[in-house]
């Protein structure tokens, strides 16, 4: 386990458990510091499967395929990956697929890398434009409640939803 992943251990365990308790069995991801521990947990757990993608839009398609046969999943990505998803969100919107995204932010609170800002700042407008509801977590104490809202809006409310972990929540890295 890397040092960077270690500081995300406690909340990652809580969120993984919350997702699993909600019936999520399929996890897909493009690696990011913000989803590193959850992806490890999803690989290690006997009841969950973790799929490494080559681009984030693949995760949207994978989640839709799982839904066609009644399986719940979550697609995990860094904020930059949201920029790879909009076209595939067309069938999500057109077909009312209940897709859940977990977006770990860059280009946000405290970012020091100028390459991350354009896409980071466009995450919520892009998701809004494609009909994905956004649920943002800034503080550790809010995670469970906000995650619950996102999970329920997807799997009970039948929406596409994104749980957005802000850099205020995750902590920005120094460059």
């Amino acid at each position, binding site marked *: 386990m890397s040092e960077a992943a270690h500081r995300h251990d406690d909340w990652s365990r809580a969120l993984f458990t919350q997702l699993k308790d909600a019936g999520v069995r399929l996890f897909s991801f493009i690696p990011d510091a913000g989803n590193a521990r959850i992806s490890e947990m999803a690989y290690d757990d006997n009841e969950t499967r973790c799929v490494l993608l080559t681009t984030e839009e693949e995760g949207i*398609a994978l989640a*839709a*395929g*799982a*839904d*066609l046969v009644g399986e719940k999943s979550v697609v995990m990505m860094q904020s930059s990956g949201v920029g790879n998803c909009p*076209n595939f969100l067309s*069938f999500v919107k057109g*077909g009312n697929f209940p897709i859940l995204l977990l977006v770990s932010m860059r280009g946000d609170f405290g970012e020091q890398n100028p390459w991350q800002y354009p896409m980071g700042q466009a995450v919520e407008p892009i998701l809004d434009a494609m009909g994905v509801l956004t649920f943002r977590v800034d503080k550790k104490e809010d995670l469970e409640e906000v995650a619950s809202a996102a999970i329920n809006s997807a799997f009970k409310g039948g929406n596409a939803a994104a749980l957005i972990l802000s850099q205020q929540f995750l902590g920005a890295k120094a460059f």
Partner: protein
Amino acid sequence: MTEVTLNRVGALPQIFPNPDDYLFVTGLAGPARDAAHLTNDGVNMFTMAGCMGAATTMGLGVALSAPDRQVVVIAGDGELMMNMGSLATVATESPQNLTIVCIDNGGHGETGGQPGHTSRRTNLAKIADGAGIENILTVGSEDGLKDAAAFVKSGTGPRFLWLRVLVGEPTSFKRNMNPLECRMRFRMAYLGA
């Protein structure tokens, strides 16, 4: 590579004589029409009419979540080229119940027949092999369809069938293009609810 002599119209029914035995996901355009004709736009098929590049991974999602069913992706060469990485994703997961059929006419038939990469130097069988898919068959003639029909039932998946076809119109068939209706009927048929 050998000369292509295969006409796409009529090819799929020879490869899948019992289409009810499968769950299908298709990409857009001509391959979707060929496939919808195969199942008469059946409830065991989700066809796309947009979102080029999504078919393979959507089929993977079905295959991983319905391990008791044989799942088939039917996609064109342009669809596959747009998301070649999905072949690596499939290879890493290696679901035994997934078959990918690429109907390759060497170009973009839906938009006017612009030549595609596979009409030049690109070899999809080598790409699938390089991605790590072990079971691969290339067919480009009527004679090869018997081999194709045996291949999709043979051994274990994932399988990649590269169906090289002549330039020409796909099967004439009008399908339901409402994604919500198509999703709901697929779910109801599979889940029985």
